[in-house]
């Protein structure tokens, strides 16, 4: 009865994408999700009546157009809407406004520093060059650098070719870039502290690194390599919240005959003769299949739902040591009206897009110091967006909700585990910071959902609440993701695969991990490939 070609554990957007492509190739697929809703960290939920939060991820840019187009996600209800205008809040009345119009953007930078306004062009050209190279690796399976198989050699050659096309000087720069900190990298371009701080913030989002930590420059790149309709670095909102992405992909799964089951937490991957043969659910049900795919992070996959004795030597340790530190919090706030911010013109294309409550580079680094000591900063970095100002479907007319992403928030506190009281205190710190820039903000609050790494782990099963299913550092990127030697979605137990953000190219709502894994699985099962190639004709 319960026999399938493939079982996908977890209905995160990557698990769903994986299932959609396996189903599209004609396989009999079931997705098993522990929660009573799908989507994992790409989810929309009505926690407070009338308001629909994107509870975890909140903006979209990494989603690969090729997948959106190929799975016909628009027809399944997905509309990605770019939003405009971000305000960076510095110290006191200092504001850096991001205008959509190029000329206006230039003049605004010039107001802060004529030098930096010019330097921005060079910065963007350099970053675009790096981004272009990385973008081209996204929908490709990383080669195994230690293998002599023709496929790996060809892929290495392909990469080398792309790399050499940068030119000698740029190659050195590029290698240096990977090991630098965001702040140091920006030092080379800019002089104004708020501009540097504003440009540095994507380097720390979701990561247990500080603006001055080596490796944060890459994280910066990871956040700007996406695009919305070809506008590289732009971010958009999903109409209906981020869950609209997962729901649309689920639509594609069903359309192709796949099955999705909620409230079906997997307790164990069943292994016989060193092969994965199915799963056992927490409720005791068993499912059999030719292959098993885990959408869970690497730590969880090997230390929670696998029997250590089923794993080859060393894998358990690798999984245990996989760097997956929780560092972010999220506060979703329902508001009775649109907040007003001091020092921001009453321009509707500016004052309701994104807000980055920064302070200075120093503020960001001090917040990191607190995290290291198991505390949250009294002056945290908060990145916000007001989706309801753009999306009429997520709050009653005239009412709003604000998504506030907080960097940093420790997975455990020095004084002990998270408690509801401490969680509320953390939430209070966040709204205190916003209130400083928006007097009267607190009076608008109708409801608040405060999420520390603890809640994120409990609900979605992201270990420690790490938003990327594992740090995005060089030792865990590309063919090293999740572990060296296992960068091609096949795991140490035969017929077991991984398809979540713990695999290349890492975290973010991109659907790429799931699609790449499907391509490898179909290869192994000798099924025709159903996964499209990426679409880079114009780059």
């Amino acid at each position, binding site marked *: 009865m319960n026999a399938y070609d493939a079982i996908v554990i977890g209905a995160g957007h990557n698990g769903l994408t994986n299932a959609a492509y396996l189903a599209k190739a004609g396989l009999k697929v079931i997705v098993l999700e522990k929660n009573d809703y799908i989507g994992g960290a790409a989810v929309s939920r009505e926690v407070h009546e009338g308001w629909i939060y994107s509870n975890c991820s909140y903006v979209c840019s990494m989603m690969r*157009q090729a997948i*959106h*187009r190929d799975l016909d*996600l*628009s027809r399944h209800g997905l*509309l*990605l*809407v*770019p939003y*405009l205008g971000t305000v960076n809040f510095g110290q006191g009345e200092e504001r850096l406004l991001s205008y*959509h*119009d190029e000329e206006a953007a230039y003049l605004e930078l010039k107001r802060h520093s004529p030098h930096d306004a010019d330097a921005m062009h060079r910065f963007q050209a350099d970053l675009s060059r790096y981004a272009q190279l990385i973008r081209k690796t996204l929908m490709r399976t990383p080669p195994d650098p230690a293998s002599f198989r023709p496929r790996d050699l060809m892929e290495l050659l392909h990469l080398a070719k792309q790399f050499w096309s940068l030119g000698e000087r740029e190659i050195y720069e590029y290698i240096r870039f990977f090991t630098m900190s965001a702040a140091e990298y920006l030092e080379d371009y800019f002089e104004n502290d708020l501009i540097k701080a504003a440009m540095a913030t994507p380097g720390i989002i979701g990561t247990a690194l500080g603006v001055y930590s080596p490796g944060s420059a890459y994280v910066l790149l990871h956040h700007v390599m996406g695009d*919305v*309709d*070809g506008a590289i670095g732009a971010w958009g909102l999903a*109409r209906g919240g981020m869950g609209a992405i997962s729901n649309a992909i689920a639509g594609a799964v069903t359309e192709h005959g796949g099955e999705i089951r909620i409230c079906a937490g997997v307790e164990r991957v069943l292994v016989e003769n060193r092969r994965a043969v199915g799963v056992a659910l927490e409720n005791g049900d068993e499912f059999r299949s030719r292959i098993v795919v885990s959408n869970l992070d690497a730590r969880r996959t090997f230390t929670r739902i696998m029997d250590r004795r089923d794993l080859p030597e060393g894998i358990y340790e690798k999984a245990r040591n996989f760097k997956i530190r929780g560092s972010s919090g999220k506060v979703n706030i329902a508001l009775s009206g649109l907040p007003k911010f001091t020092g921001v013109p009453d321009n509707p*294309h500016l004052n309701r897009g994104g807000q980055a409550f920064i302070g200075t580079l120093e503020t960001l680094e001090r917040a990191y110091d607190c995290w290291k000591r198991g505390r949250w900063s009294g002056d945290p970095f908060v990145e916000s967006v007001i989706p309801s100002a*753009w*999306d*009429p*479907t997520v709050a009653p*007319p*005239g009412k709003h909700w604000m998504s506030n992403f907080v960097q940093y928030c420790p997975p455990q506190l020095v004084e002990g585990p998270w408690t509801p009281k401490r969680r509320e205190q953390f939430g209070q710190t966040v709204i205190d910071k916003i209130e400083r820039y928006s007097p009267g903000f607190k009076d608008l609050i109708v409801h608040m959902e405060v999420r520390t790494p603890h809640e994120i782990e409990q609900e979605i099963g992201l270990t420690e609440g790490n938003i990327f299913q594992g740090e995005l550092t060089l030792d865990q990127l590309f063919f090293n993701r999740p572990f060296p030697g296992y960068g091609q979605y096949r795991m140490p137990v035969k017929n077991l695969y991984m398809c979540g953000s713990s695999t290349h190219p890492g975290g973010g709502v991109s659907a790429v991990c799931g699609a790449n894994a499907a391509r490898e699985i179909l290869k192994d099962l000798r099924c025709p490939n159903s996964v499209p190639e990426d*679409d880079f*004709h*114009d780059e």
Partner: protein
Amino acid sequence: MNAIDPYAGERLKTSPFHPRQRALNVRDAWTSWNGYQFALHYYDAEYEYFCIRNACATYDISPMQKYEIRGRDAEAMLNRMVTRDVAKIKPNRVAYCVWCTDAGRVIDDGTIFKLAGDRFMLTCGSPCAAWLEKSAFGFAEVQVTDLSDALAALSLQGPTSGAVLKKLGLNGVENAKPFDIQHFSFHCHELRVSRTGFTGDLGYELWIQPDLALELWDELYAAGEHHGIHPYGEAATNMARLEAGFIMPGMEFNEALKTVRFEHDQTPFELNLGWLVDFSKPHFSGRRALLAEQERGPRYTLTKLDIEGNRPAEDARIYANKRCTKEVGYVTSAMWSPAVKANIALAMIETEHAQGELWAEIHYEKELRQYSRVVRCQRKDQPFWAPARAKATPPPDC
């Protein structure tokens, strides 16, 4: 010092909504339409396009040509002029039409509003007074009045448009079906509302006397404040209509009366509008030529294409083979569709090749260097964009 403007004779007219639109046209991006100053975009074309697809947005259709056709013979006269059967239009309904020369070539497209048994309104993109007069020849009781400057009109399009009109106080507007006309009282005068538009989405068109235009604008914008209302211009219109698969003069067709070269204009069949041609009704202009064409088959067929890659196929030629040795057509409009996530185009394809393989040769530039690429085209039978809400009655609120 009230010096006379020496350029007065060259300046464009402004629409009744102009004072409000001018304030919102942050970019000073203007073009013109039928002698009126007309917004190309207000803030950003793509942003305005998304207002249409995601919330709601207004488009000033005042510069459109509007004619009242009235009298006992009005219906017969229109029926003689357009290819569709006007007798089948029920009162308070709108019908999309084309009209042709005797050679069956399209003069223009537009909409006919049946306001009463003997009262119609015809709207179209270009002035049509002379042709109407010609068409009225021989009909004793028809009066044609040009309402173009006497009627202001604003199109409200997008998923929240219905909610906004309800908020404006138009009770029962939710019961309007697509192509229905309703009449409301606005400041003691008539506000006509039709569930029509040029975006393929849920939408309405509001018709009002010019001296109430600003009142209507202000009340509409107050009602739409929390529903994302924003004005849009020609650029966003062009994006939305292409996704809906609608044709534009000067893009898909060359107006027949302005065409110099032999058959550089189009027939309804070529434009894939055969469904608008009704041979079962009494004689109409172009009937004989169109009958012959129906027999013979049109030389070209307007075809919807989904094109590989993401580089818009603007001005591309279409070939029957990848080597590009057999040219079979040309692209009329093309864009990357942000909503559908597809590289879409309308193209005129020689009918005999329309079902075969199609390849587009696309030229583009990257940092001053020229590139070209030949990519495969897929034919589409349905509009690229056709959300269920566009047909739903009552429509959803967002």
